[in-house]
């Protein structure tokens, strides 16, 4: 037994090695590299490209410099905009929409259900560029499909991408990502024993009561997983760039676009890395909060039992 134990753990290490090397090379190393770069003035253009220097916390201090923090196109507005983007398009949009779709599709006939899910999935699996261009063409003021339809209905045309850019990218992101939450919640709902809900029906519980008292507590773990993933994805999503390029006047300048401007238009890699580190810390904080919430829920459940 003992022999075979060592043998199997050795084999285990052997099996792990390729994956470990890849993860080290492409995840662990870049991770620490980014942190290291964020303390330098490394760039692609200018003298600091040839001789990058350690600048300590300068990149971080520049980002939070009160003189420029809240300026137009600065770090402050971008951070605040991203938080709103996450709340509206990810939490209210994708998660809630996904839950509602999953809840509705439960009641549908199998054929209607697969039709609904197919349509929602389509929004998710199309390539970014195709989707970006389709929305751009759909929303354009002068030649956009939506405005043609509105004019046909004698509703005044609207200039979505210029006058309501933030609303537009929120709706866009909710539409784009709802499929994942829907699939996840659909699987979660199927794991609930039907007898629970049938019992609730017998005692005359309303739909809302069933959702609140039976469904939500049972799928709490799924919800937390979904929240973590969706929040992180939305924090890092770049596709709105294809609709608005961060404009007009920085009204959709969410952090990924801000980072892109700093790191790949001005080629200031040091400062760009510093933003990356800050975004990572924010994501970490969000994840910790979600996990804490989930644990508290589990403890409560434990006490109640």
């Amino acid at each position, binding site marked *: 037994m003992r022999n075979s134990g060592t043998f199997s753990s050795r084999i285990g290490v052997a099996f792990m090695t390729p994956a470990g090397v890849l993860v080290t090379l492409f995840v662990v190393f870049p991770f620490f590299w980014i942190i290291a770069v964020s303390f330098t003035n490394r*760039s*692609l*253009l*200018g*003298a600091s*490209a*040839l001789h990058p220097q350690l600048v300590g916390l300068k990149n971080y201090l*520049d980002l939070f*410099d009160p*003189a*420029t923090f809240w*300026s*137009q*196109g600065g770090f402050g507005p971008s951070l605040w905009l991203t938080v709103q983007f996450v709340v509206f398009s990810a939490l209210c949009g994708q998660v809630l929409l996904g839950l509602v779709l999953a809840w509705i599709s439960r009641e549908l006939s199998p054929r209607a259900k697969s039709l609904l899910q197919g349509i929602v999935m389509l929004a998710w699996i199309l390539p970014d560029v195709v989707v970006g261009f389709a929305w751009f063409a759909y929303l354009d003021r002068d030649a956009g499909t939506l405005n043609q339809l509105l004019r046909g209905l004698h509703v005044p045309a609207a*200039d979505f991408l*210029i006058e309501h850019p933030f609303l537009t990218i929120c709706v866009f992101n909710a539409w784009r990502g709802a499929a994942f939450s829907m699939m996840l919640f659909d699987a979660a709902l199927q794991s609930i024993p039907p007898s629970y809900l049938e019992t609730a029906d017998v005692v005359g519980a309303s739909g809302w009561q069933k959702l609140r008292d039976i469904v939500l507590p049972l799928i709490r773990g799924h919800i937390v997983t979904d929240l973590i993933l969706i929040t992180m994805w939305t924090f890092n999503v770049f596709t709105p760039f294809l609709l*608005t*390029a961060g*404009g*007009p*006047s*920085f009204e959709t300048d969410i952090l990924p676009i801000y980072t892109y401007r700093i790191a*790949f*238009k*001005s*080629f200031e890699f040091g400062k760009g890395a510093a933003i990356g580190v800050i975004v990572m810390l924010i994501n970490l904080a969000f994840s910790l909060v979600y996990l804490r919430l989930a644990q508290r829920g589990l403890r409560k459940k434990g006490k109640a039992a």
Partner: protein
Amino acid sequence: MLKLGIPSPALRQEHRIAMPATPHIRWTQRAPVARTRMRVAALLFGAAAWAMALAEPVEVSIACRCVEGGVNGSEARWLKRVVIPEYVAAAKAQGRDVAVKLREFAGSAEQMSQQLALDFATGQGADLAEFDGFQIPGFVDAGLLKPLDEVAGADANAWEGWSHIPDSAQALVRFRGKRYGVPEQTDVRMIFYRRDRFRAAGLDADHWQPRSWNDILDAARALKRHDPASYPLQIDAGVAMGEATTMQGWLMLLAGTGEELRDAQGRWIVRSPGMLAALDFYKTVYIDEKLGEARTQRLVSGRNRSFTDFQRGKSAILIESNWFYYTAIDPQGDFPIPDRDELVGWAKMPARTPGSAVRGQDFVSVSGGNSFVLNPHSNHPHEAWLLLAFMNSASVLRSYQEYNEHLCVRDDVLPPHSEFLRASGRELLPLTTIRPIDADYEKVSAEIQRMTESVIANKLSPRAAMAEYAAAVKQIVGADKVVALDTSAATGVQAPAIPARTTGADHHAE
């Protein structure tokens, strides 16, 4: 700012860089056997290289922001139909088998320079690349570009063309006393106007020439009165327009106030009466009187939209580069106006008030330049240089003029037919200005775009936008390299040439 003067043939080989001595290896210490072995190996290697050279022609490539049938299409046609076949034939006649490949780039000028920066940093990219001269300092400091004679050898200094390119044009590719490319063309900026709209509004449609900013505004007001739904005036602003905002908009206005981006000591000016006046002008045009359409300026594809608007007569006054006339609205261009010569007039950009511009001028212009640089990682740097010199020889450039007339920097290649190019070059080159040749310029320029965006989007007052600019530029260049001029009086003592309340932009009561 430097002055682009009249061609001077005085310049000849001003920089002769000594080439490092080739390491000379002697084999005398080696044993004879080893020597023989080496000789055989060298012979074999040589034979193999010769065989490969026979099989494969030397390939050099050109990257241009030009696409046949698209942006700068005439340049692409010239490169494909003249430069490449004639060069390949000339090389063959000299016993060299050369293949030339054209890499057409269809994106914006900003995207092109982004691509080049990444290419050069990773040892990739074409051997010859079209390049906007103002980016040379940033690229050079980063080690992405090497002096021409370092890449191509001393031949590059001995080239006959240098004696035909005036020093002022060579300054476009020169940094710290060294040349980094060959300048090909320069441009000037002016006001274009549509005679049909002017005639309809009862304005002078044949010889319109504003003498002050106020004259421009008055004409725009008259056009707006005639057609209240129209937006007659476009002057570039905002981030979406990119460098066009700085060149076509900001620097044209600033030069008219007698100020420059930097003071005589090379410090960046971050607050000044002239800047305030320029921002007020934008505010008058885009916010207060809606003489121009701010939406166009804010669109992702705004510059193309501004061309379309002018092409279709939705706007009637556009401040642009002469490139707009001879390429964009050329009857064969991307935004063709078939009867361009009759329909479109041009005027010099006036100072804010007569005499208030840089050097006490009444009119201003801004010039940039297009050049080609050698990729320092080129596998065939000498062949690439020969191609570059061939491209910029007088006869080949004269054939370019037949494809697309432009202001060539060579004094022996004048625009052959176009009266517009001759006249605008003659009138504007003596009074034009160029951008600072400074490694920080590009980042400061981005801040200028941001400052104007805040004003035309009505997010900030001109003073607040200027304050944000000051803070941002200070962060970029350091507090010791900026200077703020007194703006306490709306038009202060720093600008004595500007009488108070003379332009319509002066409504600002702070």
